[in-house]
């Protein structure tokens, strides 16, 4: 066993910290709201700054313009960025899309998109959910009909994060009617602005826009923008879900640790009747327990990381880690609200707001985390059936 980073990984962490000192995160304007996952706001300028360092493509094979760096460099980068509260919002999605294009993308996708991604000029929204296909993704109705060397897409997607400020959508659509429910789906990379695509914002409970719904009306997509073999989209999607859950939540523990450090400072410096809040036995114990839970969460993710790195079987590990990340985030937000008392619900920018209004924002955004990307219920079922071998429940075909 070994619970430390290698000298190379430590050296890279130093380089990232130097970069963050030279490029303070607060200097970068936000293009889209921080949804609270730990990857900060969506900032195009910050994504480009990462690209200048070569860090977006560092894990790609040299044949695709990458530096062939090992997976743990990506973890080190994300951990340092999250610890500093940097706005690297789209990075995880960008990495995953690039990996899929390298693994089974068409020549056209490789030639057109990889250079764009490497320069930090591409980001992606997921067109998976639909109004009647949430947890039951396979109930989706969006269709892609072959028309010569094109497909014609028609449908209605929803809950697509930052779709309005991204460059491309990853649209999951039915390409044929098959007897088996999981067959006949394909994935398409559709540039924003393609005629027939109508992207409309949904105002969230924070008052800001994070999600969009996307109407697809006779959207023509060239065959070369299909990602993976026709009809095999669901297999690719399922394979991607483990890494999706992992990469979408890996940075949550270091980000929550940052929030906890702010709460500890607040508890030390805020006095009630002359006594620091830090000495309140109940709050003190909750803060210490939270630090402990965050350490457990971090190791859970690193264990999954080692399995993914080593190509070992992953059945339940990323599912259990995602659920814990999201429920721990909710618990920390609750603790923060309790600690701030009447100041808790004040918005960022309000007079008297504490900790930059970060806690009230986290309180609201964290509500969505156990829903997005697989609800906590769906994932617990995954742990039980795929991980523990308990019988799968009834399905309706």
């Amino acid at each position, binding site marked *: 066993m070994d619970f430390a980073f290698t000298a190379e990984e430590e050296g890279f962490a130093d380089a990232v910290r130097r970069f963050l000192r030279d490029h303070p995160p607060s200097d970068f304007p936000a293009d889209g709201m921080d949804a609270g996952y730990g990857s900060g706001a969506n900032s195009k300028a910050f994504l480009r700054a990462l690209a200048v360092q070569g860090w977006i493509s560092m894990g790609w094979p040299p044949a695709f313009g990458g530096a062939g760096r090992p997976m743990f460099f990506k973890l080190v980068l994300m951990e340092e960025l999250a610890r500093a509260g940097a706005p690297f919002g789209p990075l995880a999605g960008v990495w995953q899309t690039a990996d899929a294009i390298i693994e089974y993308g068409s020549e056209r996708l490789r030639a057109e998109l990889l250079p764009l991604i490497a320069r930090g000029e591409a980001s992606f929204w997921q067109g998976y959910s639909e109004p009647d296909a949430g947890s039951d993704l396979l109930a989706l109705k969006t269709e892609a009909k072959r028309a010569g060397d094109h497909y014609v897409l028609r449908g209605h997607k929803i809950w697509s994060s930052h779709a309005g400020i991204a460059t491309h959508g990853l649209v999951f659509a039915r390409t044929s009617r098959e007897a088996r429910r999981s067959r006949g789906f394909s994935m398409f990379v559709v540039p924003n602005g393609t005629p027939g695509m109508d992207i409309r914002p949904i105002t969230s409970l924070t008052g800001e826009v994070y999600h969009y719904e996307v109407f697809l009306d006779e959207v023509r997509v060239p065959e070369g923008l299909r990602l993976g073999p026709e009809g095999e989209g669901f297999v690719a999607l399922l394979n991607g879900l483990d890494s999706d859950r992992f990469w979408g939540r890996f940075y949550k523990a270091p980000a929550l640790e940052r929030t906890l450090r702010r709460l500890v400072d607040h508890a030390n410096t805020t006095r009630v009747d002359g006594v620091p809040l830090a000495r309140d036995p109940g709050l003190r114990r909750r803060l210490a327990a939270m630090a402990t839970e965050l350490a457990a969460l971090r190791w859970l993710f690193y264990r999954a990381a080692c399995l993914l790195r080593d190509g070992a079987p992953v059945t339940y590990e990323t599912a*259990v880690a995602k659920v814990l990340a999201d429920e721990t985030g909710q618990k920390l937000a609750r603790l923060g609200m309790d600690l701030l008392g009447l100041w808790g619900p004040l918005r960022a920018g309000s007079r008297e707001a504490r900790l930059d209004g970060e806690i009230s924002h986290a309180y609201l955004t964290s509500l969505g985390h156990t829903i997005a990307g697989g609800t906590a219920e769906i994932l617990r079922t995954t742990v039980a059936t795929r991980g523990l071998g308990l019988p799968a429940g009834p399905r309706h075909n």
Partner: protein
Amino acid sequence: MDFRPSPAQQLLVATARDYLRRHCPIELVQRLALDGRNFDDKLWRGMAELGWPGLLVPGDYGGSDGSLLDVILLVEALGYASVPGPYVASAVAATSLLLGASAAQQERLLPALASGDRIATLALVEEAGSFDPAAVTLACDGAGRLTGRKLFVKDAHVADDLIVVLRDGAALLAADRRGIARLPLETISGEPLFEVTFDAVEVGADDRLTLRGDALGAALRAGALARTAEMVGAAQRILELTVEHARTRVQGGRPIGGHQAIQHACADLVRDVDCSRGLLYAAAWRASEAMPAEREVAMAKAYAGEACLAVARRAHQIFGAISYCEEHPLHLIHKRIQAASLDFGDPALHLETVARAIGLEA
């Protein structure tokens, strides 16, 4: 970073699992828990023949130069089998303390502990009910005599030596020395705990241990880690028993594990076991690498003390009525976790260590 035990550690664990499957079945655990002594000479001798009591001890003193991490992996296997006995008290905590004693004392005391011929236990806790050494008040009078008592001393009935923590150090006293009495406390788990009283017990200069600076702290951390490992092993066993039950118990024409309410409860068992184990291994690794590990050990013990206990309690609900019976093994494993969560510091004590480590003003 690597979560896999080394080949030597895998061999140690596989050997232990196999030996304990054959020599410590749950029926033996059950019988020993009921017989009042909760100790099996034959099992202890068998463990000694495998060299387990000497795992932490240097080769020069009859041990096998193992690391704390090796010991933790072994104790996890002991916990999985719910092995009763003084292994943690003697081979982990007392041995760790003696590893911080003078060379002469190590040479005199460690070989008999390593061979399992002698058993030692730590007498620390007093009326305050705390494993914090700062709470210790017991001390010899001006004439070098000890009068007072210690509480919750584990395995005192089978111990040859008591290591008595005093306000100004520690003394190793034969358990049958004149003036010492061992009075059993009756526990729900059958875990042998004792009140030990001292009535003008003579403590000579030779009885006093010459300890290096943080020897007591290191021994308490080793004990806390070992009881954490025991909880993790026990919780893993509960997880496996419970999932097997959920898979095979049929009600209403289908296995109860087909119901989401049961599935989700089982998913939470996995979460609690995996998180407890991650913190345990990370802390044990740090301690084995001689890195500062106070915070990590405290986190591991505090977390497992809550999470593994939650595993046991949730398992009763999943098992239903059968787990309320004495003949069913769940309550035994549950009670073991319950006892281990308190030994070497309860979650509250360890969370206070964490609170200070994260910078909360005291």
